[in-house]
């Protein structure tokens, strides 16, 4: 009788450790899945605003294109950007356009030639209204709903 109890008790102790590890593993899995779906959401266009190409060089992007915006959009010459501008006057990572506090904001990402809003240079981070024209290199984009 005594031996059976001792064996059972050890069974419970081992089960505790096993369950602890399963909990850690499940938590990690859930975390990774949450992260994956959050990233997928971040990569999806919000569908509330577009940058419409007004002026362009070399047809990339083409004039008249409506580029859908995500929550955060990197703009620049590099292929890693969300919106790629094929113009040597644009920097590799030129500017960021993001949606925060219910409004659109543009931030210069340390570009060589600067980012313009309606012809004026963006100092740090500025609010964008619908209809504003964004100048990046020789390309002009208008924020539209």
């Amino acid at each position: 009788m005594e031996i059976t109890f001792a064996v059972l008790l050890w069974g419970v102790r081992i089960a505790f450790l096993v369950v602890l590890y399963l909990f850690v593993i499940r938590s990690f899995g859930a975390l990774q899945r949450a992260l994956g779906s959050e990233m997928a959401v971040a990569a999806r266009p919000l569908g509330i605003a577009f940058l419409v190409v007004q002026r362009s060089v070399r047809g990339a992007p083409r004039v008249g294109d409506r580029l859908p915006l995500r929550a955060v959009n990197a703009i620049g010459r590099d292929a890693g950007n969300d919106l790629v501008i094929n113009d040597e006057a644009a920097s590799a990572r030129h500017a960021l356009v993001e949606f925060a506090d219910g409004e659109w904001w543009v931030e210069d990402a340390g570009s060589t030639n600067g980012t313009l809003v309606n012809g004026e240079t963006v100092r740090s981070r500025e609010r964008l209204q619908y209809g504003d024209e964004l100048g990046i290199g020789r390309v002009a984009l208008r924020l539209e709903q």
Partner: protein
Amino acid sequence: MNKSQGAALPASPPRWGLGGIAPRSRFTELSLLVWVGALAVLGFVAVVGAETSSFGSASIVVPAIFIVLVLSLHVFLIARRFRGDQVLMPIAAGFTAIGLVLVQRLASDLLLQQLSWTIIAGGAFAATILIPRDLTALARFKWTWAFLGVLLLVAPLFPIIGREINGARIWVKVGPGSIEPWEAVKLLLVIFFAAYLEEYREVLSRSQRRIGPFPIPPIPYLVPIVAMWGIAMLVMIFEKDIGATALFFGIFLAMLFLATGEGFYAVLGLALLLVGGFVAYQLFGHVQVRVDTWLRPFDEDLRFGSGYQLVQGLYALANGGLFGAGLGNGMPDRIPVVWSDFVFDAFAEETGFAGALALLTLYLLFLYRGMVIALRAPTTFLQLLAAGLSFIIALQTLVIVGGNARLIPLTGITLPFVAYGGSSLVTNWMLVALLLRVSEVSNRMRGGP
């Protein structure tokens, strides 16, 4: 210039995105809570079984109450159609379950008290989910929080309400018991730091004047930094609480670094802390004792004196080995005040390196999740808030586990959620609720699960 940070975030799901999808099942949370429930039951059966040499049904009562509590929090979140994170609450519940098992193991006469505190903590969690309705509103009252925080911090120094327990004057009498105001102070200060740094980070990080590689910030903005240093030192001197000082100052430096990206501030702050620490070592007996105990606990004059607790803790760690002595089978009761200062060593003795590793991994997952929530948060205030809150848990764990393992001098910081103590449990659950709410704001703004 971003000046609209005080603007209210949308209080209801906006038309775009996933706002239209109705009642939110929190299946991930529920499936993780099942494991937490199993953990609580197995832990109690093992510990009570070892004590009474039988499997009585009495051992199930406490875990059953705990499971009901956690499930009602889960149902509460579903009823609120809460969209925030689903992993942090189960992890916090897992820590709390382990904590209850350890209180039963190490100080079973305190179990009822700890269980009551757990229920209060659950209530505080639910309240923090509801209030304030607009999380960003917290930023508007930042000086109120700072004032309240400093007031609470110095409260133990006042003659009638203050109380000195085990050499540290960090308690305030409330009715029959006493609470540690420091625990609430850490939340208030993180909220204040986040709001302050959001407002002034531009000035602090884009400084025009430099001496060599060092930026010279405009003097007025330096005042809060130096004031913080002064207050941290004051706490150390008068309340004899080295742990709180390190934690308090560490959080501040980390948030300053996060907000400005200037490593210089962190270096300057650490240098100030080291200088302050050195001076304190020279001047104050209790600091000297802590450091000497850390450096040579096995010396003849310390082994049975001030080093006794640490030495017994180290023996416990050694006794644990790879897989531990088994829950309820070790001798952690040999460590004085083991249920509050040395729970980590007790857990490591009975579940071994394996158990300790799993516990530390859980803390790492908590920090990881907290940082991801911070990265995703839509405003600087919310980002700094989430980062600061997760950092509290990480730094506390680091300081106490390091102290228990004799990596750094031992301090009276509690192991978050696990160590015995009511004030700590309640504030940590409020902290989890705040993190959940930051993640909910992100999910509402950006669309997400």
